[in-house]
């Protein structure tokens, strides 16, 4: 089987990222093709979250090369953020606003018009099971799992080309986890690329095309997982 030419979603070469003097990533080399689902594994502190944050344009590149969706991370971090959706440990939501208001704000910030944002927000929240009273409750009053679902609804509404998910299943009940897996599969059908970090090896290997193991801030091996 000869080399496969595919559009590259993420392309990193010896990427190093720092937080002050603390090394987050110590030289990551990684390629993710468009439409792939990649699972990041590794022990705690291996750099999985940092790698996701680097690809989302939040963390600066200290040295090496990094290109995400055609944007060079050394020069165009802001451009990356428009095309990328990050689901982090924190929920990026405003406590005093309701679920609906939070999702609508995020969608309007992403460039949608007021009306379209409202429609998509409603649809996304409904899909995630946040309806009725839940939709009009302030986010601060929701449980952690419900907040997570609202964050996922934001991603669902935005439909970014690259999804970066950090422990997406954490805090969700079984039904919500299955729901999330379904959403991920659909997004891939629609052409998005998904990279996620998870400790749930069984569920992840079912979903992902391949797994990448991180340790000590860089990629250890790239075993090919037959999906």
């Amino acid at each position, binding site marked *: 089987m000869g080399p496969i030419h*595919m559009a590259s979603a993420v392309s990193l070469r*010896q990427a190093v990222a720092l937080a002050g003097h603390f090394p987050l990533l110590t030289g990551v080399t990684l390629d993710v093709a468009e439409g792939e689902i990649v699972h990041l594994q590794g022990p705690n502190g291996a750099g999985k979250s940092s790698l996701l944050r680097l690809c989302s344009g939040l963390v600066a590149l200290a*040295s090496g090369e990094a*290109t995400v969706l055609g944007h060079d991370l050394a020069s165009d971090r802001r451009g990356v953020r428009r095309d990328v959706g990050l689901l982090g440990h924190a929920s990026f939501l405003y406590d005093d606003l309701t679920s609906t208001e939070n999702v609508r704000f995020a969608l309007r910030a992403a460039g949608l018009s007021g009306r379209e944002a409202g429609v998509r927000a409603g649809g996304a929240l409904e899909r995630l099971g946040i309806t009725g009273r839940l939709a009009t409750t302030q986010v601060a009053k929701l449980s952690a799992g419900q907040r997570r679902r609202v964050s996922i609804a934001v991603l669902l509404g935005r439909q970014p080309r690259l999804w970066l998910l950090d422990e997406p299943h954490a805090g969700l009940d079984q039904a919500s986890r299955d729901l999330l897996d379904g959403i991920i599969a659909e997004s891939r059908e629609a052409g998005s690329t998904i990279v996620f970090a998870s400790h749930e090896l069984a569920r992840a290997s079912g979903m992902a095309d391949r797994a990448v193991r991180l340790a*000590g801030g*860089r*990629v250890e091996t790239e075993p090919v997982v037959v999906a």
Partner: protein
Amino acid sequence: MTTVLEPISQPEPPAPAVSPPGRRAGRGGAVALRSTGLLALAGVVATVWLGLWVTPKAKGFGDLVRLLYIHPPMAWVAFLAYGVATLASLLYLWPRTRHPRFDRLAGASAETGVVFTGLTLVTGSIWGRPSWGVWWTWDPLLTTTALLFVLYLGYLALRRVPGDAATVARRAAIASLIAFLDVPIVYFSVSWWRSLHQPPTVDLTGRHLYVHGSMAWTLLLGFVSFTLAYAWLVGHRCRLSVLREREASEGLAAALEERRLEGAP
């Protein structure tokens, strides 16, 4: 953008170390610094000697005029230091000239400047007291200098905040620019405010003094030697920063290696 997907088989090449900062201060630089220091010392000593013993008393001021030889030079250095710090901040922010040396210069200049500003305030207060009868009056220059002092302190406090060095450096640079633009506004508004009440009773800039002969030379010497002293202090402070950063970056290389080893079984 296409890339060829091949099975990864070969081991990764060793990752590059992040390059350490600081250029070598050449031998020439060290010599220049030392000679500046010696000249400055000689100049300051000469100024003090001339000022205290050689120059005459002035009409209406008496011995107090001797402060003339150090107060205006100190004030000049305070403002010069601030100007240099702001210019260095601007250069640091400008993409084409972004280099850590400008951030170091800004910090060094500000630290030196705060010392001189404090001295300016003290000597200004001493000079004015016999005429005003009080230690402080809201003279526009003195008030602006007091404000400059507080601005410096805020800037230095910002530089010392724990956090990512590059972030802090950039924020400090922006903060100094914001403050710099405020200084003329403050001076203008304070002098306007004062002029509404009464004209300043004592002109601290000594414009009304008839400065001639040995007084003029001593004053000039004072300006020159204090400026040299400033240059010497800033030069040394920059070197200290370079050494500190070098130590920190060596720590970084070690930290990178240590972290990589975390992954090895």
